[in-house]
């Protein structure tokens, strides 16, 4: 602890401007320590990445910086002045802006209205949209964002929404930007665009704290990387001095699990089949057009594609949530006219795109969440068999390593990675014949990702067929036995994973080929 304070004194004596300086921050909650003696220095106009596994203490640290929690010991200094934030509004006043992983935008307001919301400039007490528009436009231009300010948010893609969030924070005068897992929801092309914007921001003098666990991105974007493990800072390194593997080791503290070749063979029997599957669009365009494919027993078929090219609608169609033309067969049975529950009963299981929207009841307990979709098998007559349901949830928690005090806590208390493990566990626990997995590891860290991949592989080896929808090429290439590319509602290519490279896939995914 003493060496830390000596070090910080030394640093404040040097010429480098430390915009954010956290010294020996500790935060203890009843019975446990969240942050232990964390020291962190961020230089002005740099991108400083903070990496660590789920539950390592990244969020607590950022909440302390943003004024949501107060540290038990240690100090926060902004621009050299020691400060205490009692609430986020004080942090905002000090120039700290937070872009959350889950966007907080009003869907039916325009881009401009969302950006100025709560900070509307007025003239003589009347809303002065003209001035606001000019300022927002300047901000957008200065960081290279091209957005129609009059479009409603509901018409924007994920990448653009994130840009709106960033502009919103900048509009409030943020000079220190905290980005919480900003790339978790983006496809590779969007990530590149975001990084271009971030570099411009830094060039304009903004300081960025970048929370992530995507190591390649962290290595490519940051000026400095701080690794947090089990509540403490493990090391602060320069991206030039480390590689991916070294960084991952610092993060998890052990060797990375390897991908490994599969030992089993793809089966002979078709378990999931789509023939001329078309989803009729609400407007003129059909989101899915004439898709035909088979998934064999013990096979993982990857669907690669940029989000919004019909993957979501394809999953809904296979699950029975939308009206379709064409046929769907599950386990050799024609399922085209069956409802969702009947299809699930045929052995279908679905890990949804968005765990919050489609997967979880956040206010309900873990065991009730684990029960969702399995009510029939965990009932005795018309009554829920509560004991069995809780036991089944405890098994999922154990097997999938969900970190939680018990199965009785509500789902919203878990970190994103642990929520995802619960959703994955719920859908794999009953040994389905066919799994549709949409972004099964989106927004979760390396350790949790490896665990989910291992479970999917193990179930596949046991005979399960998997349709894997992902924008993460590493995931697609690492897991799939066959890759289909979706572009503009159609299946545009079928590739062998051994021959596919990210470059080739990228071409098909963007329609260049």
């Amino acid at each position: 602890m003493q060496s830390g304070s000596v070090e910080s004194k030394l640093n404040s004596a040097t010429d480098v401007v430390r915009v954010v300086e956290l010294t020996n921050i500790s935060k203890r909650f009843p019975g446990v320590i969240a942050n232990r003696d964390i020291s962190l220095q961020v230089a002005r106009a740099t991108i400083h990445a903070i990496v660590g596994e789920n539950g390592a203490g990244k969020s607590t640290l950022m909440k302390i910086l943003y004024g949501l929690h107060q540290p038990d010991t240690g100090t926060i200094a902004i621009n050299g002045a020691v400060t205490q934030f009692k609430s986020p509004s004080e942090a905002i006043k000090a120039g700290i802006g937070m872009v959350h992983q889950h966007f907080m935008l009003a869907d039916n307001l325009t881009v401009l209205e969302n950006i100025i919301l709560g900070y509307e400039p007025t003239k003589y007490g009347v809303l002065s949209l003209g001035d606001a528009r000019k300022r927002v436009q300047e901000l957008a231009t200065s960081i290279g964002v091209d957005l129609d300010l009059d479009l409603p948010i509901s018409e924007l893609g994920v990448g653009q929404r994130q840009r709106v969030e960033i502009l919103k924070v900048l509009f409030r005068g943020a000079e220190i930007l905290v980005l919480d897992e900003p790339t978790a929801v983006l496809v590779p092309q969007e990530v590149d665009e975001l990084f271009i914007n971030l570099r411009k921001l830094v060039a304009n003098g903004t300081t960025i704290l970048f929370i992530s666990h995507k190591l390649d991105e962290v290595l490519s974007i940051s000026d400095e990387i701080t690794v947090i493990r089990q509540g403490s800072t493990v090391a602060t390194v320069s991206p030039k001095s480390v590689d991916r593997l070294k960084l991952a080791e610092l993060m998890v503290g052990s060797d990375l699990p390897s991908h490994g070749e599969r030992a089993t063979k793809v089966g002979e029997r078709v378990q999931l089949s789509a023939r001329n599957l078309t989803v009729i669009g609400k407007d003129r365009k059909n989101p899915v057009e004439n898709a035909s494919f088979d998934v064999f027993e013990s096979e993982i078929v990857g669907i690669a594609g940029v989000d919004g090219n019909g993957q979501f609608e394809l999953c809904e169609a296979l699950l029975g949530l939308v009206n379709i033309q064409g046929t769907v067969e599950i386990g050799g049975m024609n399922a085209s006219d069956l409802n969702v529950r009947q299809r699930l009963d045929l052995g279908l299981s679905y890990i949804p795109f968005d765990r919050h929207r489609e997967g979880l009841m956040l206010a309900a307990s873990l065991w009730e969440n684990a029960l969702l979709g399995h009510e029939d098998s965990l009932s005795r007559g018309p009554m829920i068999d509560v004991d069995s349901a809780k036991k089944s949830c405890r098994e999922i928690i154990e097997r999938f390593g969900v970190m939680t005090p018990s199965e009785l806590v509500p789902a919203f208390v878990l970190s994103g990675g642990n929520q995802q493990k619960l959703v994955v566990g719920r859908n794999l626990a009953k040994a389905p014949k066919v799994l549709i997995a949409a972004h099964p590891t989106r927004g979760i860290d390396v350790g949790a990702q490896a665990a989910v991949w291992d479970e999917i592989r193990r179930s596949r080896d046991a005979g399960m067929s998997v349709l894997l929808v992902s924008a993460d090429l590493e995931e697609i290439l690492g897991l799939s036995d066959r890759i289909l590319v979706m572009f503009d509602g159609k299946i545009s290519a079928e590739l062998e994973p051994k021959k596919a490279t990210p470059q080739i896939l990228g071409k098909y995914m963007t329609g260049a080929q």
Partner: protein
Amino acid sequence: MRKSLNTLGSSVAAIILALVICGVLLLITGKNPLMAYGKILETGLTSEKLLEMLKRATPLIFSAIAVAIGFKMNLFNIGVEGQYLFAALIAAEMGTHVSLPAPLHVLFILVVAMVSGAAWASIAAILKITRGINEVISTIMLNYIALSFIQWIFETFFRDDSDGGLNVKTTEIAPSGRMPDLVHDRLNGMFIVALLVAFLYWVIVFRSRFGFQLRASGLNPIAARTAGIPANRMILFALLLSGAVAGLVAMPSVIGDVYAYGPSSTPTQFGFAGITVALLGRNHPFGIIVAAMLFGFLDSTSAVLQLSEIPSSIVKVIQAIIVLVVVIVNEASSRRYNRKIAEQAALSPKSLDVSR
């Protein structure tokens, strides 16, 4: 368990706070709040008034549970009022047209009331499922339609003119169709039925598979749909069930007291009071029973207050303030509670090595 203790504690605190606020109000109007509260306790705690409390609580329990069934799936059934008045008229009239042995006759009337209430509620359900009409709007509108419709049916078909037009009621139900009293002329058996309905509500909504699917549809309709729970069927069942319980609201009067339906003898406004009681009881059967008794208690004392020159409307003010304060205090305390367990869970021993 800790959660329910948390809820209970904050509810008690809210009631005390509400009494303080009302005390200040009384002081402003030049009355002695201690005297007023003393009067309420003094008169309210006699056995006679306690029986009245239970009697007044009975229809509130039915009404609040009807509302709570909807709330549990994010459906706002504002139409309990229309549903129960419609059910009261139909059940009272149908009860005069059958001759059955006593227990069956009573049961028959109760079933007719439930079916009628559900039938009226089904209009809102069908409008929502087929045309996407928000149930708040349709049930409010259906209340107005019900009032006029009931009046027309009553005046045209069901009014009993055998007394030469003095008796503005349906024909009296035969003794075999009457609910026996628990305490003569003070409390009838509908109170037991209300407790039974509260228990069934708990079993069905909190413990059965159907109830789980209902709550899941309320907690996250998209996740429920994705898990294969048919949204439309849940809307229909929830509103039918809600309407069926609503159908019982006027039964303590119809088969326990007046033995007929009458525009002036059948109590009104319980549909709206039920919303308040459900809110106060946080949609939990035990909470609802306690809240209904509290309201029944305050109602039972209002007449006595008037005799001692304290405006009886102060009781309504206390009720309203209690509800407001309870809602605010509960919201604040559940936020605090949620934050606390979120912090603890994020740091559960498993996710962090404490020893090091």
